[in-house]
C-alpha cells in the first residue's frame, strides 16, 4: 500500500442513536491520527457528502468503512449494500450493526404496530393521526421517504461483513486501539486479524475483568438492582441481581458491575456462541436453588421480562431474530 495517496476512510450511521459517533469523537486526539493517515471521504455526521458522490466512487476504493446502526428501512439496506461495494474493509461498528441492539427490540412487535406507537401514542403529539407516506407530491416534484422493513436486521444479515466491533457504544479506548491497528497495517507494520473476527474487544467474558469476589453459584431469588443494597465486593449474580456479565464479551473493563450495576450485555456474546440469550437462560436456570416446578416458578417470577433481560442487545442477532408478530406479518 502506498503512503503517497492517503487511504480513504468512511463512516456511516444507519438505524442507530449516534452514540457510536460520539464514542469515536471521545477518542480525543486520536481522531487527528485518522485525519492524518486517512482521507475521510464520507461521514454524514462530521462532514457534508452526498450519496451520489459515494456512488460515483469506484468499487473498493474506500479502505475502511465503520458502519454503525442496524438495517431498519430500505435506505439503510441500500446504503449497506453501497458501502459494501465501495469499501475494502467493512466493519460492523457498535452493537446495532453487529447484533441489532436497542432498535432491534422493535422486532418483538409488528412493524406496523411500531409505526402506530411511534406516531399516534403518547410519544407523539399527532391529534389527526397523520402517518408518513413513502411518496408525496410537492410543487418541486415527487419526494420519497424510506420505507420501513418488517424487522430490523444486523449488517451481516444484509451484506458480507469483514469485522465486528461490539459495544453500545464501543469503548473509546478500544476504538483508538483499532484505529492504531489499521494505521499499522496501512504502514505495513501489522497484519489484519482473520476475516470475520471480532475486533476491539476481549475474547473472554465480563467476569474476567470484574473484580468482585465469586463463589460457587446458587440463586435463591432474583432481585432488582433497586430492590436491595448490593454487597459492594460480592458477585452481583450471587446476590440475585440478574447480571449478564458471565455471558457478555469482555472489553469494557466491567464498567457497570464496577459501578454497582449489573451488566446488561451490550458487548454481546463471546466467541463461538450461537445465541447469547440461550447461554444466559441455561446458566441462570442451572444454578437456581430449586427442584420442584412450583418452587422454580416462584424464583423465576422474580425475573421480570426474561426476553428483555436476555435479548436486550442481541435480539436481531439471535437465532430467532424476532417475535412471532414480525414473522407472522405476511402470513395472514
Amino acid at each position: 500500500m502506498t503512503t503517497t495517496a492517503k487511504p480513504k476512510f468512511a463512516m456511516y450511521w444507519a438505524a442507530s442513536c449516534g452514540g457510536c459517533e460520539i464514542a469515536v469523537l471521545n477518542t480525543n486526539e486520536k481522531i487527528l491520527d485518522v485525519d492524518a493517515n486517512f482521507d475521510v471521504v464520507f461521514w454524514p455526521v462530521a462532514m457534508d457528502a452526498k450519496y451520489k458522490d459515494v456512488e460515483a466512487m469506484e468499487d473498493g476504493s474506500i479502505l475502511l468503512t465503520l458502519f454503525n446502526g442496524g438495517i431498519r428501512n430500505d435506505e439503510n439496506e441500500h446504503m449497506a449494500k453501497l458501502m459494501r461495494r465501495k469499501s475494502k474493509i467493512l466493519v460492523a461498528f457498535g452493537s446495532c450493526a453487529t447484533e441489532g441492539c436497542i432498535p432491534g427490540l422493535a422486532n418483538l412487535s409488528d412493524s406496523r404496530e411500531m409505526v402506530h406507537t411511534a406516531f399516534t401514542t403518547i410519544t407523539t403529539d399527532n391529534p389527526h393521526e397523520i402517518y408518513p407516506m413513502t411518496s408525496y407530491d410537492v410543487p418541486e416534484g415527487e419526494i420519497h421517504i424510506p420505507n420501513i422493513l418488517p424487522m430490523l436486521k444486523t449488517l451481516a444479515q444484509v451484506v458480507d461483513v469483514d469485522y465486528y466491533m461490539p459495544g453500545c457504544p464501543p469503548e473509546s479506548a478500544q476504538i483508538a486501539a483499532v484505529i492504531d491497528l489499521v494505521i499499522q497495517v496501512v504502514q505495513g507494520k501489522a497484519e489484519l486479524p482473520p476475516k470475520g473476527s471480532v475486533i476491539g474487544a476481549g475474547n473472554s467474558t465480563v467476569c474476567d475483568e470484574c473484580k468482585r469476589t465469586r463463589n460457587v453459584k446458587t440463586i435463591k431469588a432474583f432481585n432488582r438492582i433497586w430492590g436491595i443494597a448490593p454487597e459492594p465486593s460480592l458477585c452481583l449474580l450471587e446476590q440475585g441481581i440478574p447480571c449478564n456479565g458471565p455471558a457478555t464479551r469482555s472489553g469494557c473493563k466491567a464498567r457497570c458491575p464496577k459501578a454497582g450495576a449489573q451488566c446488561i450485555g451490550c458487548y454481546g456474546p463471546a466467541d463461538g456462541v450461537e445465541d447469547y440469550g440461550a447461554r444466559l437462560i441455561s446458566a441462570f436456570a442451572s444454578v437456581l436453588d430449586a427442584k420442584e416446578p412450583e418452587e422454580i416458578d416462584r424464583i423465576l417470577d422474580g425475573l421480570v421480562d426474561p426476553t428483555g433481560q436476555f435479548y436486550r442487545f442481541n435480539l436481531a442477532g439471535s437465532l430467532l431474530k424476532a417475535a412471532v408478530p414480525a414473522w407472522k406479518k405476511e402470513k395472514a
Partner: protein
Amino acid sequence: MTANLIENTSPADGRERIGVYVCHCGTNIAGVVDVVQVADWAAKQLKHRGVVIAREYKFMCSSLGQELIEKDIKELGLNRVIVAACSPHLHEKTFRTACANAGLNPFLCEMVSIREQVSWVHTDKAAATAKAKAMISGGVERVRHQVPLEPMTVPIDPTTLVVGGGIAGIQSALEIADAGFHVYLVEREPSIGGHMAQFDKTFPTLDCSACILTPKMFSVGSHPNITLLTWSEVEKVEGYVGNFTVTIRKKARKIDEELCTGCGICQEKCPKKVIDNVYEAGLGYRKAVYTPFPQAIPNRPVVDVDNCTYYEKGTCKACEIFCPTKAIVFDQQDKILNVKVGNIILATGYELFDARRMPNYGYGRLPNVFTSLEIERLTNAAGPTNGNIVLRDGKTTPKAVGIIHCVGSRDKNFNNYCSVICCMQSLKFAHIIHERTGATIYNFYIDIRAAFKDYDEFYQRVLEEGTLFVRGKVAEVSDVPRTESEKGKLIIQVEDTLVGKQRRIPVDMVVLSAGLEPRKDTREVAKTFGISCSVNGWFIEKHPKLDPIATMTEGIFIAGCAQGPKDIPASVAQGAAAAARVLSRIEQKQMALEPVRASVIEEKCSGCRICNGLCPFNAITFHEDRMVTEINPALCQGCGTCVAACPAGAITGTGFSNDQIMAQIEGLLMLNVDQEPVAA
C-alpha cells in the same frame, strides 16, 4: 490422557469422505422403508455434503456387511461412516470396531436408528422413508463435525467393597476373597446373615436355613482377605471405576471388639428387655445389649443406645460390672473409615411389604393375622415359641389356617410385579404348619408359580398332603360372623374362580404371604453410589437380559434382591456372578473409559463459577489463583450439563459437541420445508 481433538478435521475444509450404509435388517426395515431409494437418494442428494458412497445391504451387522464398510474405508478413503440400521445401543460397538479394523477412528462412525425409530413404529411407507432420509441427513451433518477420539485408560484397584451381608453379599465376598483379593464387607445390622438367617426351612428341599448358612457366615468372619464391618454404613462414595474412595461410618457398638470374647454374660445380666422388631419380626424379645441371634457373626454384642437404661438414667451398667474382660465402653464413638476400592458390589437386599397397607386383610387390626416373616419365626425352633405354631395368645394351636398369596404383589394398587418367592414360601408354610399342627391349610392363590428345579415336585407333594387350594384373590379377612359356625373365627371372603362362586372360609389363623419391596432408602443408596432405580424402586441393571449384574455406572455391580425379587439359589448365583465380573476386571488391571467427556478452554473461561456446583461427580474444580475452572477427565461422566450451562461457551463436550448437535438439527430439518436438501 484425555480424549484429544484433532483440529485439522474441522468440517470447513470439506475434506470429509462419508460413506452411508442403509441396512434392510431383512424385512424389519426394508418392509417399511424404501431402503434402495433412501440409499441412492443419499448418494445423489448428499454428495455436496461429503457423501462419496451410499449402499444398502440385507444385514449390515453380518460379517459381510462389516467387510463392505472396511473395504470402502480402505479403497475409497472414507473418513466418516454413517450406518442407518438399528439402535446404537445394539450395534454401535460392532460398526465402530469394524471401522477401527479398517484403520478409521471408531468414533468417526455414527449410527442412525431407522429401525426402532422408524420402521418399527411407523406404518405409512412414504412418510417413514422421508423420515429415514431426514434422519440420515441429520446423521451426516453430525458426523461431519465429529472428531477422532481416543479412550482413556484407568488402573483398577484390586480391593473390592461389598455392601450388604445377606446371602448374596456373603457369596460375592467369599468368591473374591478366595481368589486372593481383599474385600471390605459392610453390613448395617450387628451381624451378617440377612433375611436367610431368620428363616426356618428353605424350599423345596426343606433343609434347615441356619445349617447351610452359618458355615458360610463363619468363613466370612474368619477369612484373612475379608475385612468385616458390621454395624456400619457407607456414607460417601467418591472417585470412579478402579479408584473409588468410600467413606464408611462404623457405628459405636459400645463394646471393645478386641477385648470382647462373645461370652454373652452381658446379655444374660442385662435387665432391660426390648421387643425385637428386626430379627424376631416383633414376635420376640432381646436385651438392650444383644447379638441378634446365637450364631451371629461377628459374635460381638451391640449396646442398643435408644433402649439401654444407662443412656436413659445414667445408672445400671450391669453389663459393665459383669463383663469378665471389661469390654464395655459406654463412651465409645462412631468411627469414620476411608477405604480405597476398585469395584463395588451392592447386595442390599429387600424389605417385606407392609401388610398394614391392605387393611381389608386385617394385619395389625385382627390379632391372628400373621405375616410370612412372623411365621418364619414362629416355625423356627430357635424362635420365640421354640417352633410351636400358636395364635397370638401364645397357647392355642390353630385348627384351620388360611395362607394368602400375592399380598401386595401382582396388585395394581401396590406392586404390579410378582415377588417370585411367595408361592414357594407359602407352599413351604403349608407343609410345615400341616406337619406340626395337623391343621387344615387353605392356600388362596392367583397362579401357582413353581417354575424352577424341583419346585413343582414340591407343589405336587403339598397337594398330596391334602392342602386345599382356592384360586382367587381374597377380598377381605373379617371377624364379623354371618352364621353361628363363623363365630370367633376369621372369615376369608374370596371368589373361588374355579368354582365360580363367592366363598366364606372360617379359619383360626391367616398367613399373609407378603411380597418383596425395595428397601425404603434404596433411592438414597442409589444416589450415594451414582446408580439409578427402576420405576418399582429396584436397582436398574445394565441390561435386563444380557447384563443383569452390572449397572450403568462403571465399577458398580448389583446382586441379590436389590436388583429384583429372587430366591436363595438365584441370589447366590448372582452374588457369584458379580464376583466373577469384578475378578475379571481386577485381572485386566486397567480399563478403557468412553471418551465422551467435557473439557474447559482456559483462555475462554472467565471464572464466573456458574458450572462449579453442577457436577454430582465432583469432576469440576476451580483454581482461585488463575481464576479458571478445570474438569477432571477421569471423574467426568460425560453428561454435558456443564457444557450446556457455561455462559461463555468455554466448555466443550467431546462426542456431543455443540457443532455436532447444531449440525444435526440443521440436517434433520433440511428436508422440512421442501423435500430437496439445500446446500450446507
